[in-house]
């Protein structure tokens, strides 16, 4: 009797074997709840002591008298934009990392590593330094969007160049991609250096902080400058999932499966460049989020982009809030640039992926 019961219990499980969709959905719900908690904690922690409960209650109930006027300013004008910006940047870095890895069919393709962030940085620095002089008319034309837009253009040019260099006949050479990334990064570095040489003292201080990666200077205008770029991308990303899934089998097979590969590639490249550009424009070089987050999620819920992309957005936001919390606490009352935190954790992680994959593939 027990045997037949066991057999009955095993059969449906066997039919579903290898199907991780239910688990992936649960992970996404869990991450969403976890992000909400993290965001509240992030709002409540900082140089002034304001308890999380009172903050949430005050915001939800609208009873302003529960928190002081100072606390109101601290929370609404300093912490709120910082938390929102951190979430958007984390989500956008992780989603653009996952998209780029899908497009290049390689888990090591990260905008930070293959020079896309450097390209976006070059675009941003160009406008930070020259925006007040030579490029003033262009800067005026785009208003608060001029730095994000310049970063987008820089990122776009570099992503496109990288794809053209490392992909031939629908196959991407990993070695060529990484080496081209080094060359492109060096090139962007050289031009950025040249611009820094021209910069005046005020611009230099801005650039140094910006280059190390930070969300410390978050303001509502910065949030409003990148939100119209990042939020539509996060919303649109899941619609790329079918194409990214098909692309993992190679361009030819993706086409056989019904994907318009040329159009799809262009859309994906523009998306990666826009997301990376927006993040880089307001936060500088926050590295490795785009590689650590997708990799961790692929290990648990698998590489199906229908679930990977939303999960990346959520976990990316969580990770950035955590990194920001560490950056704020570790040398309090001073602050560490968040890029140092992500690189300290992310770089060894990248090496770990390399070591694990060394036996699997030709890198």
């Amino acid at each position, binding site marked *: 009797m027990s045997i037949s019961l066991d057999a009955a219990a095993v059969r449906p499980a066997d039919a579903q074997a*290898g199907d*991780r969709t239910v688990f992936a959905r649960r992970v996404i719900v869990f991450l969403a709840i976890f992000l909400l908690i993290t965001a509240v904690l992030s709002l409540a922690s900082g140089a002034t002591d304001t308890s999380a409960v009172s903050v949430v209650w005050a915001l939800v109930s609208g009873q302003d008298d529960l928190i002081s006027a100072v606390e109101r300013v601290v929370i609404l004008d300093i912490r709120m934009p910082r938390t929102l910006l951190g979430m958007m940047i984390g989500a956008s870095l992780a989603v653009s990392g996952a998209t780029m890895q899908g497009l290049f*069919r390689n888990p090591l393709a990260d905008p930070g590593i293959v020079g896309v962030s450097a390209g976006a940085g070059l675009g941003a620095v160009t406008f930070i330094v020259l925006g007040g002089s030579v490029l003033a008319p262009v800067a005026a034309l785009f208003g608060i969007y001029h730095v994000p837009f310049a970063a987008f253009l820089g990122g776009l040019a570099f992503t496109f160049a990288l794809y053209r260099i490392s992909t031939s006949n629908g196959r991407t050479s990993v070695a060529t991609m990484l080496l081209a990334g080094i060359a492109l990064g060096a090139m962007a570095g050289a031009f950025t250096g040249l611009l820094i040489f021209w910069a005046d003292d005020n611009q230099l201080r801005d650039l140094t902080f910006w280059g190390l990666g930070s969300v410390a200077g978050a303001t509502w205008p910065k949030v409003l400058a990148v939100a119209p770029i990042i939020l539509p991308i996060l919303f649109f990303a899941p619609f790329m999932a*079918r194409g990214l899934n098909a692309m*993992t089998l190679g361009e030819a*097979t993706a086409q*056989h499966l019904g*994907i318009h590969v040329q159009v799809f590639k262009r859309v994906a490249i523009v998306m990666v460049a826009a997301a990376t550009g927006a993040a880089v424009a307001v936060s500088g070089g926050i590295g490795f989020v785009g590689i650590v987050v997708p990799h961790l999620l692929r290990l648990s819920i698998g590489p199906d982009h229908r679930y990977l992309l939303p999960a990346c957005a959520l976990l990316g936001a969580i990770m950035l809030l955590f990194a920001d919390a560490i950056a704020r606490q570790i040398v309090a009352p001073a602050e560490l640039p968040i890029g140092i935190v992500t690189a300290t954790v992310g770089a060894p992680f990248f090496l770990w992926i390399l070591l694990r994959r060394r036996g699997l*593939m030709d890198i």
Partner: protein
Amino acid sequence: MLTAKNIHVRLGKTEILHGIDMAASQDHFTVIIGPNGSGKTTLLRALTGEIGFDGDVHLNGVNIASARPAELASLRGVLPQAASLSFPFTVHEVVRLGLTTGVQTGTDVPERIGQALDAVDMGGFGGRLYQELSGGEQQRVQLARVLAQVWEPVFEGMPRCLFLDEPISSLDIKHQLQIMQIARRYADAGGGVVAILHDLNLTAHYADHVVLMKQGEVHGCGAPREVLTPDNLETVYGCPMAVGQVPPGMDFFVLPLIDAARRGLASPKLAVSN
């Protein structure tokens, strides 16, 4: 249902295909054979719309060169020679990729995936990681993915087509026969099958129509018995072959005459012949 007229393909400065004409009917199993470098894979890639070409290819009246990828995906599935995956997909998830276009069917998705895996003798492998399978197992999973895409040989009155590039190249004899049976049944049920094979005997046994290629041209096409003759095969492959039947009346076989010249058996006419 598949017609190709005057196909020319250039890769760089070299012309690989010099004006191919061929046709493959629905409910026919068409096999393309020929030596390495004769242009078989290039021809298949032109027929599936994967590479650019001069000439004209129509599948079910749809012009391959101008059709939308999604439209083509509902008409035909393509099994490439090799497919590698860089991410840790399970076998179940790889077969699900066949359902990308969503042009389907009454059956629900997990059931279809299970049927496709059973068809290639990979039932029970759904939960395994694709990257950890052997080469032959991966090849069968890829075929299951293609079958999941075009499961019904005829869908809403339209015959569909399977394009297979060396589908049995890394399989053992049991699974070679199994895959040939799948192709045979697909054709018998009204779908079209166009496959590149190297095994002349399996071609002789299973094909309805053979296209024999030599240096970017069609050297001969027709029923296996008309095309697989000792003269044709020696001209194309450059080695003497015997074609015979054991016992008489059964399917014929092709036998390479190894060291025939050294043993003084240079002429295929000396060998068993049908």
